[in-house]
């Protein structure tokens, strides 16, 4: 089965090829029909450039783009059969919201009744029925954004490109619409690419997340996989809130055990059989590694078995506690579900279980292991 969207070695240069700004570097991905994909990354990581190349607003400097098996990288946008919701809404200011949404349908010569039914359905889903007959200039940013989203979703296209589609919405509405939009897309078997810098949105809506940084696709995997097995240090620290704790460590064998020496004299010792043999060998042969551990996995030791850390902050967020403590020359953050009765300056004992550790190569950042197994 051919993928709904295929990117093959796609490069984007702003300026001459090879000399200009290399915004997107050698992206390869296949997106199956019916999938929702999130392009996740910080500003300037190349996610919007990628989306615009798929839409046809930016020239593809190198590589191929295939939509439903058709090579489209040299076609104008009009012939690619994609729908797009723009970050800046981009509604036509001269016509009402209803006409904005119906524009593409009318261009396809659908009957008035059909157009009306479709527009009303999508408007109801996005809670904009009341403003359908207003002009874009007279409605709020959030409403414009939903109108723009409706204009994209109402169409019958091979691919739906949603650029930061919910950035302007209030948190409650955003949570509600996330679910509805996902249901709408899934119910119809549509294929969608969502560009976002909000990882909650990516996690909630996407089947797979493509993490981008510096124009490079860092990892393209399911939200779970990205959480459990980040491909490299960037994905590990970028995805997850609060971010992964990271320490540089030196692995050594001490009387049959594996010992990790962190900065500031912290030593963590694990019995050798807690790691798979090949991993043990890999860690010991490298020596220098980067150790990562998610804040949710850091525990306060009940007994004195853990390593000492001095509390620098204790924040109750209403549903969880974030504790930051000075540890190994930097800071370790841990998350607990209840209020913690500890004050600044207290010494706590933190415990890092071997199955929660991620190891990365200090030079390349590539993952060495997740938990007790090799990556």
């Amino acid at each position: 089965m051919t993928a709904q969207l295929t990117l093959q070695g796609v490069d984007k240069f702003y300026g001459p090829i090879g000399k200009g700004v290399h915004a997107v570097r050698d992206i390869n991905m296949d997106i199956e029909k019916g999938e929702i994909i999130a392009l996740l990354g910080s500003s300037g990581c190349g996610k919007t450039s990628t989306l615009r190349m798929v839409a046809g607003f930016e020239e593809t400097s190198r590589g191929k783009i295939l939509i439903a098996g058709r090579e489209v990288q040299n076609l104008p946008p009009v012939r690619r059969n994609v729908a797009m919701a723009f970050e800046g809404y981009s509604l036509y200011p001269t016509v009402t919201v209803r006409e904005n949404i119906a524009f593409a349908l009318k261009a396809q010569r659908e009957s008035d009744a059909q157009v009306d039914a479709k527009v009303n359905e999508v408007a109801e889903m996005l809670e904009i029925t009341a403003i359908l007959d207003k002009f874009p200039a007279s409605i709020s940013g959030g409403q414009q954004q939903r109108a723009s989203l409706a204009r994209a979703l109402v169409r019958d296209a091979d691919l739906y490109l949603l650029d930061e589609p919910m950035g302007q919405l209030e948190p409650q509405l955003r949570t509600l619409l996330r679910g509805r939009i996902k249901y709408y897309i899934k119910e119809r078997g549509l294929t969608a690419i969502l560009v976002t810098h909000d990882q909650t949105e990516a996690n909630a809506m996407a089947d797979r997340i493509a993490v981008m940084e510096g124009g490079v696709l860092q990892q393209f995997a399911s939200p779970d996989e990205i959480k459990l097995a980040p491909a490299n240090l960037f994905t590990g620290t970028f995805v997850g809130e609060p971010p992964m704790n990271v320490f540089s460590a030196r692995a050594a064998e001490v009387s049959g055990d594996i010992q990790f020496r962190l900065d500031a004299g912290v030593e963590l010792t694990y019995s050798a059989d807690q790691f798979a043999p090949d991993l043990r060998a890999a860690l010991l042969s490298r020596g220098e590694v980067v150790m990562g551990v998610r804040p949710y996995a850091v525990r306060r030791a009940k007994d004195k078995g853990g390593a000492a850390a001095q509390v620098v902050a204790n924040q109750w967020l209403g549903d969880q506690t974030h504790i930051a403590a000075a540890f190994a020359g930097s800071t370790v953050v841990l998350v607990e579900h209840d209020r913690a009765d500890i004050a600044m300056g207290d010494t706590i004992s933190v415990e890092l279980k071997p199955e929660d550790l991620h190891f990365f190569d200090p030079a390349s950042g590539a993952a060495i292991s997740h938990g007790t197994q090799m990556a």
Partner: protein
Amino acid sequence: MESTSLIERILRGIAITVVILFFMFPIFWIFLMSLQTNETILRVPPSMVFEPSLQNYRALITGQLETQTGTLEIRFMGNLFNSFFLSTTSVAIGLLLGVPAAYAFARLKFRGSEDIAFTLLSFRFAPPLLVLLPLTIYFQQIGLANTYGGLIWVYQLIVLPLILWIVRGYFEDIPADVEYAYRIAGHDFWATFRKIALPLAGPGIAAAGLLAFIFAWNNFIFALVLASADKQPVTVGALAFITASGIQYGQIAAGIILSIAPTFALALYAQRYLVEGLSLGAVKG
């Protein structure tokens, strides 16, 4: 506005009155002159009391200029028509060429686009007299001297850069995504230009066209050198009032009133476009 105090409003009123008096008085005086004869115009001290007469206008419209030494033929109405024809045609051609060019300069970043746009603007830097001599020689050689076509061509030096640079700004102010949204919804480049870009830049195009019309109408030097009597616009035609038997102030004044009337009326009519256009922001917010 409601919060302004009475004193502030009075002061503002006075200031506006002073400005209006300062700028409008010459035109008002010319209007009075146009209704008088040379004798009453030139009396010392000048007075605003006189018996108004339409004889200056009559002379202009009939083309018979009465002077002390006899009757002189003038072609003022022909000049007025020339002005109208030259300006309108120049602006129409300027818009036809300039608006798509402005769109290209605003939207497509091609090699040398800035240089070409700047070169077009630089036509406005050069003093007209500098280009007139070579232009006259060329035009005589290729048979464009003393033709409407030649004049309209040369008028593009005035009209085209103006339209290009003003309209380009308006196109640049339209978010490109609005056009992208239209194109991705199944419309081609030209449909987008006609249905989205042109209407959104409409007020700007109107403003640019109006300004270009006024500039073309006011042109003097190109027409003076390149056109003979039957192709001359009013600006040049007014020279005919400086006759052997004296300067015909009354007719000059009437001529001025008649020649500023079209641009004046146009500006009044299009004022709303000008304000709307120059204040921009039609799609912002």
